């Protein structure tokens, strides 16, 4: 059984926490390289940021791409080339050195009369950069508040670290390979930022949903629940990355390599790397940070201590399917009111099974281990009322998937039959 096949069928059980450490090393290495390159060689800013020299050459019939080919022979392939009034080439290069500019001017005479030769200022003024930087700071603040309100502050920390991680690496690519930074590049960085954040929130929402549910059993460390959530969400993440990357990859391969549009090339590379890193950081960076922070919370560290006492903290245990699925059907009538006595009073019988099968639910769970059974009765969900609102809302109509197959553990309610329209 290959892992990929498992993912496709949804039966995957990848040990994500085991990969967090290598991932952290990889991330730190990339960040180190990026920051290092940035400080050593900086960014190759294009004419839009720095200004340069503008040439005008009267050369009827020469196309932009022909002119570009000619310029790449002079080492100025990343110039901005326009045709003015149909017959004049305007070439704006980021070359500022007057000597070098003069040389290029002489070379350009091969194309036609050089009618214009002057220095130009940037089109992307300082003010735009300042405003954008300020806007980004406000944005990070706003997002931190937003995620703290909708999910929790630890996730806000994780999401921001992941976004900054992605931005550093994307900018790093530009610095390491000295790609020319154009206004479009800046937009690509912002696109990556937006995508990364979006992706992280989708993953977090799953984590939130799963931990609210499974956490009610009190049997698992946060990391283990996080692992379940990541396994649940990985197919979505893979598919989304594929559908986002495909158009960009197509732009890179077809646009840049086959059809020879060099301008698109670096741009597409940056975007491609950014999207992949964005998907990766949600699963490995953002999640590990939250798990690390959550394990420090008393609620979760107590559970960990208990499990440690039992010698259960070796590696990542898998969350039992029952614990994972039961959560989708929180007990009827808000678990808080029910006590263990009430539980015992309820007849426990396999007869509850048929209910499940004659509604639209099919039991798929397997028998549980002895260990988890005993624990479950101990820690029967007084916390289940804490679970997600949506769960509660669903509780009345949801059919319990695993009911009936579970003689020993908690007792799922008799499902109310759901009428379909």
């Amino acid at each position, binding site marked *: 059984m290959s892992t990929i096949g498992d993912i496709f069928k949804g039966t995957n059980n990848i040990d994500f926490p085991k990969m967090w450490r290598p991932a952290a090393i990889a991330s730190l290495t990339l960040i180190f390289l990026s920051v290092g390159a940035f400080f050593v060689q900086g960014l190759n800013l294009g004419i839009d940021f720095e200004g340069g020299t503008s040439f005008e050459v009267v050369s009827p019939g020469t*196309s932009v791409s022909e002119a570009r080919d000619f310029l790449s022979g002079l080492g100025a392939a990343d110039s901005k080339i326009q045709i003015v009034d149909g017959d004049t080439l305007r070439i704006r290069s980021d070359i500022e050195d007057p000597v070098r500019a003069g040389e290029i001017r002489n070379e350009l005479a091969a194309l036609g009369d050089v009618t214009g030769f002057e220095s130009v200022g940037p089109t992307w*003024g300082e003010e735009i950069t300042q405003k954008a930087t*300020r806007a980004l700071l406000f944005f990070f603040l706003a997002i931190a508040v937003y995620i703290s309100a909708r999910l929790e502050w630890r996730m806000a920390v994780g999401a921001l670290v992941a976004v900054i991680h992605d931005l550093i690496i994307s900018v790093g690519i530009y610095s390491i390979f000295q790609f020319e930074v154009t206004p479009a590049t800046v937009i*690509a960085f912002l696109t990556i930022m937006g995508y990364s954040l979006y992706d992280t*929130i989708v993953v977090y929402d799953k984590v939130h949903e799963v931990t609210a549910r499974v956490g009610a059993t009190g049997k698992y460390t946060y990391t283990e629940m996080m692992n379940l959530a990541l396994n649940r969400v990985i197919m*979505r993440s893979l598919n989304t990355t594929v559908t986002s990357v495909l158009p960009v990859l*197509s732009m890179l391969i*077809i646009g840049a390599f086959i059809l020879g549009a060099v301008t698109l090339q670096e741009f597409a590379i940056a975007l491609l790397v950014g999207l992949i890193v964005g998907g990766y950081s949600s699963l490995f960076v953002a999640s590990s940070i939250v798990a690390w922070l959550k394990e420090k919370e008393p609620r979760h560290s107590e559970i960990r201590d208990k499990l440690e006492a039992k010698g259960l903290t070796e590696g990542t245990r898998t969350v039992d399917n029952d614990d994972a699925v039961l959560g989708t059907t929180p007990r009827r009538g808000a678990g808080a009111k029910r006590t263990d006595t009430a539980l015992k009073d309820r007849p426990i019988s396999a007869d509850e099974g048929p209910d499940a099968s004659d509604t639209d639910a099919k039991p798929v769970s397997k028998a549980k281990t002895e260990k988890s059974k005993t624990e479950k009765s101990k820690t029967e969900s007084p916390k289940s009322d804490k679970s997600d609102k949506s769960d509660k809302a669903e509780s009345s109509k949801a059919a319990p998937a695993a009911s009936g197959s579970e003689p020993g553990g908690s007792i799922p309610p008799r499902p109310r039959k759901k009428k379909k329209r």
Partner: protein
Amino acid sequence: MSRRQLVHLIGITVLSIAGLIATFAAGNEPLLGLDLQGGVEVRYQATEETTTESLDQAVEIIRSRVDSLGVAEPEISRVDEGILVQLPGVKDTDRALELVGATAELEFRPVVQRFNPEATLADAGIDDPVEFYDEAIASSQAAEVSTTLAPDTTVAEGAEEFPSTSVPGTTIPPTTTTILETDEEKIEFVENLFGIGQAPSLTDLEDDDGTTNVIMAEFDDEGNETARYELGPVGLKGEGLTDANAVLQGVEWVVAPEFKAGDEGINAFNAIATACFNRDPTCSVGAVAMALDGRVISAPQVNAAEFGRDQITISGGPFSEQEAKDLAVALRFGALPVELEPEQQRVVSGSLGDDALNAGMIAGLIGLALVAVYVIWYYRVLGMVAIASLLISGALLWTIISWLGTTQGLALTLAGITGLIVSIGVSVDSNIVYFEHVKEDMRNGRTLGSSVERAFPIAFSTIVKADVASLIAAVLLYALTSGAVRGFAFYLGLATILDLVATYFFMGPAVKWLARHFADKPQSFGVGALAASAAAGESA
């Protein structure tokens, strides 16, 4: 699936098709940016020797003025002794000149007469102008005529627009004010004061060389005329200003302009101020108008004969914070540091070249086709819903971008297109989040029908959570930035909203509708293997 959802499904489909038809019928099409399609450029030359700094400053000012919606993405750069302005896709060079020419200077002119064609004295709350005049004079003490005569102190409904910009405490020095005798004179004086009477037609701007009297109007935000003025010759232009800021004075917002020293700055302003303060015939209303692009933006009363260069405040009646800031911006931006003359206008091609544009288009289409193949292969019928949902949001997007491109100069650059391509990934993701939830529920033993109903609200809540984050980004970046970043924010916000619309109104109902029709064939939903493995699990 309820009737309401069916209505949503049909409604959104009809809407997007109607949008496309309207777009083609109106001939709207997206305005491709400078990099993709080129446009028109105007070169401005400084009329006198100038510094790099002031040219850079002028570049910033022109950028703000040209880019009205903030998303036209003009390219403006300093060149030797001048400025080069490039605008996307403007085939009509006159329009380009007009746009850039709108960076015309701010003018300070004395107000000779104020008209308020709509209002009557009764509107201003004056039943008997003669009595009003007599009382005002009578209640005044020797030093000055009472401020009762300042229009804003007695403003009534219908006449509130013009006094709102006047400075409280208008002073008519006794030395220059003769007490009027006849009723006619008194009525005329009061009518003049409140701008009552027939207004002449506006002066054609082309006839205005700044040396003669003109008739100009003031407008509110909606473009309705609020007042009309006869203005004297230009006394001072915007370059006489060095700065203008909105400041909070006590509890009131005021605008504080700063003038240059000397004859081309504060002295010229004081010449008008003195004339107005003394109610010379050239400024009988006692107000000075600031005009921009042939429109009066403000015409406050003058309450002193001489001002210090940076001691002036313009107060409204009162200004809101926004009004004060808008006026400050207009004063600053009108104040170009150098005088520029249009020298040359030319048509320019896209800087990416046709080859790159074509390559990008082909690549984009192939990329989309690959996405379609992938989701349909993986999700079968659901995949088709995802593609249809993408087409719906694509149609709406095209309609909006075309409309804004034609009417508002919204430009679509390479960066914008890339943003949209990535937003395709995000839109498809909304589908994937939902589909994966459905599959998870089925894995847990639900039927298709129940999974589809149950998973939607949960998946939609996830999508909303993530999309709101994108919207926060879009709103903040749009509000706080300029140039290309602003364009990006606009597209991000638009695509995100359309994603939510398509998900809620189309994708959800469509999946539910299909689930009813494919209830017995879960394999069409790409979940056949699941059903099989579930069955296997049951038998085990």
